[in-house]
């Protein structure tokens, strides 16, 4: 038996919550949900969670979608479906809302799972791993599941250690000396520290292992109460009194000084996380062969630069400190500290700096693009300038508090 097929994992079904609208990422989320937002050139945000599943040996995954899920559904079906083998009882499938009676969105993360409890009834797993499709991190879920089994808990919550001063922005978990969870604090003014470590608090990562029966019982009870129907707010707190709710410390596999776990929730945090990827020593390492991040493979030609006229005024295709995806052609233009998605084209004398260009973006001759996120397929016309005059940019585009210009899909410029 190969290492990736450990018996305990045969009893686990993963449920990935991928219905997030990502309002604060608008306009990147105008035509797609947050998990489908492109990140790092060739990836979508959900690829990081799905890669964690695959690398952890989990092969049974429901992806719960709802908001503008066409692009996500296609990505999962084409990009991930073929590597799961139905004959071996492996699968990954997107599950849209069933809309039994009321034509309404899920009322919360717990409602999303509860509305799909029939799936658990069919699968009958012993354990359910609940994940968010919105986060970027590397984690071996198998280790967490092992710890859950050893502790005898009804549910286990993954928690990342954060300095107390920074924990107020998150859901904080209070624990006792045995890592039993004693309380949940939502964006607390004074976060509970870890016992014996007054400088450090535990933050809820939205990664949960449940005994299936305990989960269904808690969801069924919650459905009858007037709550927010949210895992962090309602379901997990309802299990605190059982004394069988444990925290599991996040072991980062990214091998950097600080553990990396990001909720890429805003345009500015998206931009910062993207710029981190092009740093010489990025906080998040995409190049670790021990924990590969995979995505939908596309049969594209290799990236290419053309024109090497290094004399003044010559055409020079050059790319520095950047991520360059397949199919890109930098033809006589200059690119620095940027992420170029698949099939981007940068034409002669154009200059792109500190920007994220998604699939198929075309930068016209002599155009300048600085500190911008340009969504799929946008054509920047010849001599057009983005990111040099904030007032001008504001008239036409979204400009973030951090001063990043966002040009959505379908924008026509002249």
């Amino acid at each position, binding site marked *: 038996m190969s290492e990736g097929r450990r018996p305990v994992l045969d009893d686990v079904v993963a449920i990935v919550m991928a219905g997030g609208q990502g309002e604060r990422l608008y306009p990147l989320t105008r035509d797609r949900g947050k998990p489908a937002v492109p990140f790092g050139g060739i990836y979508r945000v959900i690829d990081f969670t799905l890669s964690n599943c695959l690398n952890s040996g989990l092969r049974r995954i429901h992806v719960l979608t709802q908001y503008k899920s066409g692009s996500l559904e296609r990505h999962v079906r084409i990009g991930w479906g073929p590597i799961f083998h139905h004959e071996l009882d492996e699968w990954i499938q997107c599950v849209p809302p069933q809309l*039994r*009676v*009321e034509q309404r969105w899920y009322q919360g993360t717990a409602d999303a799972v509860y509305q799909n*409890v*029939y799936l*658990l*009834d069919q699968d009958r797993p012993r354990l359910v791993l609940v994940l968010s499709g919105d986060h970027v991190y590397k984690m071996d879920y198998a280790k967490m599941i092992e710890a859950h089994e050893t502790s005898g808990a009804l549910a286990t919550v993954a928690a990342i250690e954060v300095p107390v001063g920074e924990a107020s922005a998150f859901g904080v978990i209070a624990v006792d000396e045995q890592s039993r969870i004693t309380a949940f604090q939502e964006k607390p003014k004074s976060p509970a520290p870890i016992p014996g470590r007054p400088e450090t608090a535990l933050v809820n990562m939205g990664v949960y292992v449940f005994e299936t029966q305990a989960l*269904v*019982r808690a969801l*069924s009870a919650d*459905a*009858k*109460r*007037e709550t927010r129907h949210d895992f962090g707010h309602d379901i997990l707190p309802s299990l605190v009194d059982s004394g069988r709710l444990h925290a599991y410390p996040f072991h980062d596999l990214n091998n950097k000084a600080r553990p990396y776990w990001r909720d890429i929730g805003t345009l500015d945090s998206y931009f910062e996380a993207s710029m981190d990827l092009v740093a010489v020593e990025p906080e998040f390492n995409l190049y670790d062969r021990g924990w590969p991040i995979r995505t939908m493979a596309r049969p594209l030609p290799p990236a290419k630069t053309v024109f090497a006229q290094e004399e003044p005024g010559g055409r020079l295709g050059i790319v520095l400190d950047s991520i360059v995806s397949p199919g890109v052609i930098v033809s006589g233009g200059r690119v620095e500290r940027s992420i170029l998605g698949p099939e981007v084209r940068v034409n002669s004398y154009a200059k792109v700096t500190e920007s994220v260009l998604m699939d198929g973006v075309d930068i016209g001759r002599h155009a300048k693009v600085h500190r911008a996120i340009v969504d799929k397929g946008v054509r920047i016309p010849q001599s057009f300038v983005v990111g040099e005059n904030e007032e001008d940019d504001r008239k036409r585009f979204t400009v973030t508090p951090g001063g990043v210009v966002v040009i959505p899909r379908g924008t026509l410029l002249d």
Partner: protein
Amino acid sequence: MAKILVIEDEKNLRLLYKQDLERDGYVVVTAADAPEGVRLVEIEHPDLVVMDIRLPGMDGLEAMGRVLDRHPRLPVVLNSAYSSYQDSFMSWAADAYVVKSADTDELRSRVRDLLDARAAG
């Protein structure tokens, strides 16, 4: 006075439950199949529903899901001749599960407990 909706396809049982629950002081309305039961919930606004699971027209668990979708806090007692439905996660949405027996003692006692709890809560 609390109103109970009984969804039961067997005519004799329907009459028995109606008679016994009325004797306990409740107003009882009945439906002989699931679609009729789901419809009556909207019209009669019962305080509690007693329902069979094997029903004509629609599975009782499905019908309960539809009712609870609109009225999540309405107490539901599943009343089945079979105990095996208790394994179904969908049945866990019910407030009580009663296996049919020769008398209505257990059913009536669960109904009373739930309505008392509802009145108190």
